[in-house]
Structures are given as C-alpha cells and as structure tokens.
C-alpha cells in the first residue's frame, strides 16, 4: 500500500467505526465496546505505518472530484465554480497530528469504555459513534489539502463537539452549552470560508499549495486578509479571546469528551491551522501580531480565571485555554515547532488530567465541585498521584513533558516576536499562575479536609486505569522528544517550516522555573494546611464576565432587533400592506356601492354630468 492509501485507510477506519456503532450499536453493546476503541487503535497503527513509510515527504492522495469546476467563460466577471477535489495531504506535520489524535484518542476511547458503562445501550453506542465520528472529522481536518475540505473537517469537528457536549440531551444546560459552542464555531467556519474566497480570488485555486507557494509574491493586503480570516477560524475553534466563552460551558459533556476534544485535540486545531499556514503568517505581520497578542492575552486571562474556579473541570478548561494561548503565541511568532511540541505534550498531560478528574467525578457520582471534594488521597491514591503528576507536568516541572515544551516557547518569546521580551515575561508570569492554580486544584481535591460522602469513593477499574497510566507515562516522558540536547521533533517536522534546531535559552528556563516555584509555593502556603474558606474575586470566578457582556452587547440587541422588526416592520408594514391595500379597496368598494344609491335620478345625473364633461372635453377643451 502506498502512503496515500494508508492515509485514506486511516481516515476511513474511524468513519466505519462510527457507522458500525451508530447503526448496529444500539442492539449490541459488546460490539460497541470493541469497535469504538479498536477503530481508533487501528487507525493509530495505520498512521504510524504511514508516518514511517513517508518520512519527511509530503504526499497528496486524491479520493474523488468534489466539484469539477465550471468552464472559464471569456469576458465574464466574477468567479466560476472552482474545481474542488477531495484529497488528503500527509506530511510530517499531519503525521504528528494524526498520531496524537489517534493515539490519545485511542486511550481515551478505552477509558470511556469503562467510564460510560452506566449509560443505556442506545446512549452508549451513540457516545462511541460520535467519538469515532469526531476522530474522523479531526483527521479530515488535519489531512485537508484545500480550503473546502478544511472547512468540511473544521465544521464536522464542531458538529462532533456539539453532539458530545450535548450528549445528555435532557439536561437543559448541556443543550444550551452545545448550541453556544456550535454557533461560535460557525463564526470560525465562516471565517475560513471567507479566507478561502480571498485566496481563490488571489491565486485562482483553493489548494493550499498554490497559495502558500506564492505567499511571497502576493499583495500584502491579500495575505493579511487571508491570514486574518483564517485567524477568525482558529480563534473560534481554539477558544481564544474573544470567541472563548464556549469552552468552559463545554464541560457539560462527559469527561472523556472534554479530555479528547476540549483538551487534547480539537481545540488545538487553531494552532495547527496557523502552523499549516506558517508561510502566510510569515508574510502577514499584522495578522501574525494579532494572533500573538490574542494568544498572550488569552493565556493570561484564562490563567487568572483558572485561579478562581471551583469546578474541577472548569479549572482544567481555563487551563486549556491558557495553554493554547501559549501555543498561539508560539506559532504566531514563527516558533512553529515549539508550538506543535507544546501541542503534543499538552495533549498528553491535559488528557491525563481530565481522565484523572474523570476518575474523581466517576467516584463521586458526578460531583465536580472541588469544595465538596477533599481528602481523596486516602481513597484514591493512584488517581491522586497521577493528577499531581499531570499538574506538575502542566506547570512545567522538570523533567516532566511540560517543562521542555513550555520553556521552548518562553525562550522563543524572549528571542522573537512582536514586543519581545515583554511576551516572554508575561509567559513567565502565567507560568507562575499555572503552578498556583494547578496545585490549588490538587490540594482542594485530594489534600484538604474531606467532605462528607467522599468515603465511598474508590479507584476505578483496571479498564479505566490502564489508559490513564499510559498517558501518565507519556506526560512524564513526552519531553524526551525535544529535551534540548537532541530534538527529534524539529528533525521531523522542522522541514515543513524551514526551522532548524531550537535555541536553548537558560535564562528562560531559570525564570520559568522560578516562577513556577513561586506559584507552587504560594499554593502550599495557602492550602497546605488543610481546608481554606476562600472567596476568590468574583470577577475572576466569572472569568471577567464575558458571558454577560456578550449577552448585553450582542444577544440582547439581536433579540431586541428581531422584536422591533417584527412589531414595527413585519406586522404593520410588510404583512400589513396587503390588509391596507385590501381595506383601501374595500373602502373604495363601499363608496362605489354608496354611489349606486338605487335612485334613478342620481344615475341620470351622473350620466348627464359625464356626458357634459365628454362633450366639453372633446369640443372645447381640446381646441
């Protein structure tokens, strides 16, 4: 099999898993248990093989022609129907992404087999079907080689996300959260669609290569526009400011969903996108600068918000936003490898954290509020340890994975980018906050005084622990990809971006490490002693209250506009015009009837008057 065919197979496997689970699953739970994870595992193997076979080359595999394209017509203006192919592109960047998606995805699927076991058959199969469908969509996204397929993948992951956030269909909050996520993601989809138009207008093709290949030769404004609208897509998908408010709500979904979609993979698609279009952003300083500031700002904002959350999954959600901010910053300033590196390690430890949190939630029958946890270390030592491991990895403790990837970004922040070294310093500050809120979560959950009801909590079964342990291993050792002395990742994907070995910045390492220690220290000082009755600032707890802002500034006015339009325009004018015309005609009709009085004399009068007018008009008036 060629690489292309392997890639195609890898893409189809999750799709077939979806079909199996959707159509045969409801009657056959055993099949779901098997097919759900297995389709992803097989895909992982296939992509592994493809990556090995492919090396650092780029392969395009055509599946079929989606649209043939209209013939060019002489003398016309505007666009013909563009030729669009369904083709897959596999290069080292795609390889890394597919392996992360299928690898981490496979582990989370396995975990979910146990985690979701309490659901009834129909819901169980639905869950795995949609999870498989998500993997398919995400793979399509990263394998896309033209804008349309990218949009398809982009939107389908949004759809999967919607379906899984709203998995508990009878829960009002879940349904609303799903809708919110979907609508905000559609904004992103539209952004990419518009970007594709600008690109098509500039280069006459929707293929990435034809745009990126000529990136240097195109007008600046075109490049900025494409980059800007792509950024809209990226921001929406990756929950960056200002389209970030859906992510915390998205935690309404089952925890494996949060782990896979809203931590490890989908939300990092924005990072992937900017990396994929690196040559474009290299020539679009305004868009790149915007991305950079958005990343930085979101990282800070989310980190601050994370310090004040009491819901364990929300802490992790804000943390995800924050870390993706890091990645945004990295890819926006041209440190693509560092960004992707952090994407990979983040996938490991954030998935780990979510699964660990999932263990806790599972054990407490759905309780997510950390204030009602505490002291779980006794009942769940393994989970506690793993959570701590993940927290430290996230915080950037050496030698865990996060240490290496984060340092590379901070180092790049000092070295490159817009407004350096300010960016680097802010990132260091955020690292301190990260250390603080992660340890705080750990303390509140596992260490502080136990609350009632936590006694029955227990470790989950082996089926759920094995994938967690595997992820823990990855989170611990993930840094070995690129610890400095050697740099496997750069060797593999650096060619895509034309990057050579990363620079090692001791100052960045030292500063970050110090900052993390400060953060951890503060936590220990505040929470080490046991339960703390804290009142975090309201503004942070509500993450600067963007929800209310949007409600007031956007949703409210839209509803008001709708109401105004209906009451002032639609009903009285647009619909009313018929009634008005009708009643005008009716009045006229009544007048005519009134004239028709039945009195002969008035008929004759009308007759005579009209005849007189006729005679005068003809005989005199026209002379």
């Amino acid at each position, binding site marked *: 099999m060629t690489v292309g065919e392997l890639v195609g197979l890898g893409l189809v496997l999750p799709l077939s898993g979806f079909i199996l689970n959707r159509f045969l699953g409801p009657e056959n739970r055993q099949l779901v248990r098997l097919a759900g994870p297995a389709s992803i595992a097989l895909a992982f193997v296939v992509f592994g093989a493809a990556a090995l076979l492919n090396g650092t080359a780029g392969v395009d595999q055509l599946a079929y022609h989606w649209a043939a394209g209209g013939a060019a017509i002489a003398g016309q203006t505007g666009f013909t129907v563009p030729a669009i192919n369904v083709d897959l592109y596999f290069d080292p960047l795609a390889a890394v992404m597919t392996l992360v998606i299928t690898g981490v995805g496979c582990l989370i699927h396995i975990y979910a087999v146990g985690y979701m076991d309490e659901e009834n058959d129909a819901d169980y199969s639905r869950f795995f079907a949609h999870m498989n469908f998500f993997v398919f969509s995400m793979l399509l996204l990263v394998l896309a080689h033209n804008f349309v397929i990218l949009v398809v993948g982009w939107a389908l992951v949004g759809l999967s996300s919607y379906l899984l956030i709203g998995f508990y269909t009878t829960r009002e909050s879940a349904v609303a959260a799903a809708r919110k996520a979907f609508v905000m993601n559609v904004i992103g989809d539209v952004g990419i669609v518009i970007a594709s138009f600008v690109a098509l207008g500039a280069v006459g093709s929707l293929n990435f290569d034809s745009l990126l290949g000529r990136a240097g030769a195109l007008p600046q404004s075109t490049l900025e526009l494409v980059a800007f609208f792509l950024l809209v897509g990226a921001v929406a998908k990756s929950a960056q400011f200002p389209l970030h408010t859906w992510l915390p709500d998205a935690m309404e979904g089952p925890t494996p969903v949060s782990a896979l979609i809203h931590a490890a993979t989908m939300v990092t698609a924005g990072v992937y996108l900017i990396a994929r279009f690196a040559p474009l952003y290299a020539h679009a300083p305004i868009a790149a600068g915007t991305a950079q500031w958005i990343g930085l700002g979101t990282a800070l904002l989310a980190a601050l918000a994370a310090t004040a959350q009491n819901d364990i999954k929300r802490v992790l959600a804000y943390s995800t936003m924050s870390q993706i901010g890091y990645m945004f910053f990295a890819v926006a300033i041209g440190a693509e490898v560092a960004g992707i590196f952090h994407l990979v390690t983040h996938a490991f430890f954030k998935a780990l954290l979510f699964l660990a949190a999932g263990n806790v939630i599972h054990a407490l029958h759905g309780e997510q509020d950390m204030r009602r946890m505490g002291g779980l270390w006794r009942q769940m030592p393994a989970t506690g340890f793993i959570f701590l491991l993940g927290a430290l990895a996230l915080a950037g403790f050496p030698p865990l994975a996060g240490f290496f990837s984060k340092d590379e970004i901070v180092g790049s922040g000092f070295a490159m980018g817009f407004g350096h070294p300010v960016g680097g310093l802010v990132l260091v500050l955020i690292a301190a906050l990260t250390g603080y809120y992660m340890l705080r979560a750990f303390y509140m959950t596992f260490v502080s005084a136990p609350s009632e009801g936590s006694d029955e909590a227990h470790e989950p079964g082996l089926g759920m622990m094995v994938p967690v342990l595997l992820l823990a291993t990855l989170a611990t050792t993930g840094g070995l990809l690129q610890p400095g002395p050697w740099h496997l990742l750069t060797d593999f994907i650096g060619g895509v971006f034309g990057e050579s070995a990363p620079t090692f910045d001791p100052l960045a390492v030292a500063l970050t490490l110090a900052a993390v220690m400060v953060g951890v220290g503060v936590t220990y000082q505040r929470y080490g002693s046991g339960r703390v009755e804290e009142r975090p600032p309201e503004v942070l707890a509500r993450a600067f209250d963007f929800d209310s802002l949007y409600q007031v500034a956007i949703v409210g006015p839209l509803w008001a506009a709708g109401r105004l339009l209906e009451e002032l325009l639609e009903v009285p004018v647009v619909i009313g015009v018929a009634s008005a015309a009708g009643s005008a005609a009716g009045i006229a009709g009544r007048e005519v009837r009134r004239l028709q009085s039945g009195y002969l004399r008035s008929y004759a009068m009308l*007759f005579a008057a009209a005849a007189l007018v*006729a*005679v005068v008009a003809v005989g005199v008036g026209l002379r």
Partner: protein
Amino acid sequence: MSAADLGLVALAIPAGTVMVLLMADAFVGEDSKAALAPIAGLGLVSAIVFAVTSAASGLTDRGGAQTYFNQTLVVDGFSVFFQLLFLGLAVLVLMIAPDYLDRRGIQKGEFYVLLVSALVGMMLLVAAVNLITIFVAIELLSISLYILAAFLRRQEGSQEAGLKYLLIGGFASGFLLYGLALIYGATGSTSVASISRTLPHLGGDNLLFAELGVALLVVGLAFKASAAPFHSWTPDVYQGAPIPVVAFMSVGTKVAAIAVFLRIVSGALAAPAVQPRSALLLGAVSALSMIVGAVGALRQTDLKRMLAYSSIAQAGYLLLAAVASGRQGMVGGLFYLAAYGVMTFGAFGVLSLLGNGDDDGTGIELQRGIGYSRPLLGALLALFMLSLAGLPPTVGFMGKLFVFEAAIGSGYVGLTIIAIISSAIALYYYLRVVAVVYSPTADSEVGRPAPEPWGVSAVAFAGALTLLLGIFPGILYGLAQRASLL
C-alpha cells in the same frame, strides 16, 4: 348565392322566426308555451347553418363583403362573426330559459318573441352601416330587453329593473340620437361609408359638430356597453331581471355595442381630426369602467350584482381593444368579445340552473358547498369565475392577453397598467366565489332540484368552450383574424 347572400339569409331567418313565433303563440296552449323554445331554436339553428356556410364559403376579412338595401346593411366577415356569436348565444339561452320560466311561473310565448326580436336587433346592429339602421337596431334590441327585464312582471324587483332600464335607456337614446343628428349635420349623410369619406375633409363648425356627434355617440354606446360612468343601470337591472334575460343581455348588448365601437367609432369615424378625441374619450371610459367595475364588485354579496359590476370591468377591457385600434386591437377585441360571451353566458347560465322555486337564490353565500352537492354545476361555476378572472388555461386569459398585447403594441401602457390593476382586484372577488363553491358544509347534499338536461348541456357546452379555446386559442384567433375589418 354568394357568401354574403348566405349571410343575409342568416340575418333574415331570425326576423322570420319572430313572425312564426308570434303566430305559433296564438295556437299553442297556455300550458305548453315551452314548445316555442324548440321552434325558435330550430329557426336559429338553421340561421347558424347559413351563417357557417357563409363564413366557410369565402367570406373573410379581405373579401366577399357585400352591402344591401341601398348601403344600409353590410354582410362581411365581421358581421357574420357576430351573427354566429349572437345566434349561438340565443340558442344557448333558449336551452336554459324554459325551465327557468317554468320555475318562476312566467312561461309565456312573448318571452320567445321578444328574445328573438332582441336577437334581430343585435344582428342588425353589427351589420348596420347607416346611422338610421344603427339607431333602429339599438332601439329594437333595447325595447325588447326593457320588456324582458320586467318579464317577471309581478315581481317588484323585475318591475323596477324594467322601468329603470327603460327610463335611463330612453334618456341615453336621447343623447345617442342627438349625437347621430350632429354627425349627420356635419356630413350631410347617414351612410357610414359616405360619412367616412367626408369626414377627413371637414373643417370649421362641421368638424366641431362631427366631434361632438362622435362624443355623444360614444356616450350612447357606452351606455349600452354598460361602461362607466354610464353604467349605473347595470347592477340594478341585472339584479332584478330574470336570469336567462341577464345571460342574454349582458352578452348581447355589450358585444353589439362594442362591435359598433370597433366598426364605426374606431373604424369608419376614425378620421385623423376626430380619432385622437374619440380615442381619448374611449380611453377614459375604458379606464373608468375597469376601475369602477373592479372596485364595485369587491363588496357585493349577490352573485348577479357582482357579475354586473364585473361586466362593467369587462366592458373596460373590451373598450381597451377598441382604443388600441389597428389590426391587432381588432383581432384581440374580437377574440375577447367571443371569450366574454362564452364565459359570461356560462356564469349566468349556471346561476339560472342553480335557482330554485320563486327566488333566484343568487347570494354568494348560498353557493357554499355546491361544488359537492352539484359537482358539475359547481365546477362549471368555478371555471367561469377563473375564466372571468383571466386565469389560464381558460379563454378569458387568452382574451386578456391578446387585448393587452394590442394595447401595449399601440403604446397605451398607462391604460394597460390600469387594466392589470383592475384584473388584480378582480381576482379577489372571482376567486372568493371559487373558494365558497368548494367550502365543505355540513348539509350541502340536500334541497336542490333535479338538474335540467338541456340547461346543463348548454352551460357544459360553454364550459367546454371556455377550456378548449383557452387551451387551443388558435381556433378562435383564426376566426377573429378572418373577421377582422383591418
């Protein structure tokens, strides 16, 4: 016999039929006056045979025409077209009338005599090419119709209709006569041909007389065509008169009057100095009719009255063809006249058949659900309404199309716009009837008399024509082309 002679025979037979009927009336017993209908019908059918033969044997728009009686009468394609139309109409009315008369207790021989003599008046009018003939023909058909309108002589409504019609008709005759006198005064002749020759050379007072004469002629004819603002009698008379009479007069009088417009006003009298004025007058009358008719029909609750207003609007459309002039206007006008005849007869014919006992029962609400209780008549009524509304695939649509086409072609865009607005308003009241006809009711199965085979076949025939000529307008259009004077 030449083709024109055959046409003359077709004209003479109805006149003879009047005499035959008069005599037959004396010999037929009171209880069997209905037997006069087939007698009259036989005569008229034989006249139809002659007229058809005449039309088929070479009487066309371009040739075969012949004048008779010292140029007071002409038989040409135009007149034979209308003879056929009137004869056909009269036969159909004879098919629906006897049962109606029986129901209303007025089965009298005079009805048939007067019907046929009115027919003679109409046939004479379309063939008349002399002012005296025109006047006599108009009076012949009018006086017959005055009596027919009051034929339900014990009914107050019918009496009122007859007297109103008579008084205002006489009033109008005064105007008409004065107009004719002025035209005669201006040109010194009552022969249309000679007037037509003289008219272009007139000047001074004589031209003024001619113009005023034409204006008064238009007024008088507009009255007969029930065009606004000379329309006031129409709703009252239509409402009060017996339905078969209305079926006959609403078609016959209007068609004959419009024929005179086409032949005389827009034809022979269209001298360069006069034509713009008469066209302006006709245009104004046409526009007013279209508006008044459409608007007036909006709030009617009685179908006969509604149809009366609708016929006012139809007069407007027909006059539009006369205004448009030119061959296209002529052909379009002829087409629409025939279409109007078929669908209007049909509508009134259905009403005549739907009536019961001593009341015509023509309230719109009374027709609720007849689409189910009397499926054929209900469907036909709906069909005629659609046709009058000018919706495809009926002959009414095609007629409007050709008339509007001619009007636009002659540059009368404003009038066409008014016509179109009027048509839009008209849709409302016509389709309202359709909806009523097909509204399900709880007890729509009871209380209806048995259908009358002759009457039903008459309206069914009209219905078939309405559809057939709507789907294949080429047949009628060809006839209209052959009948065109231009």
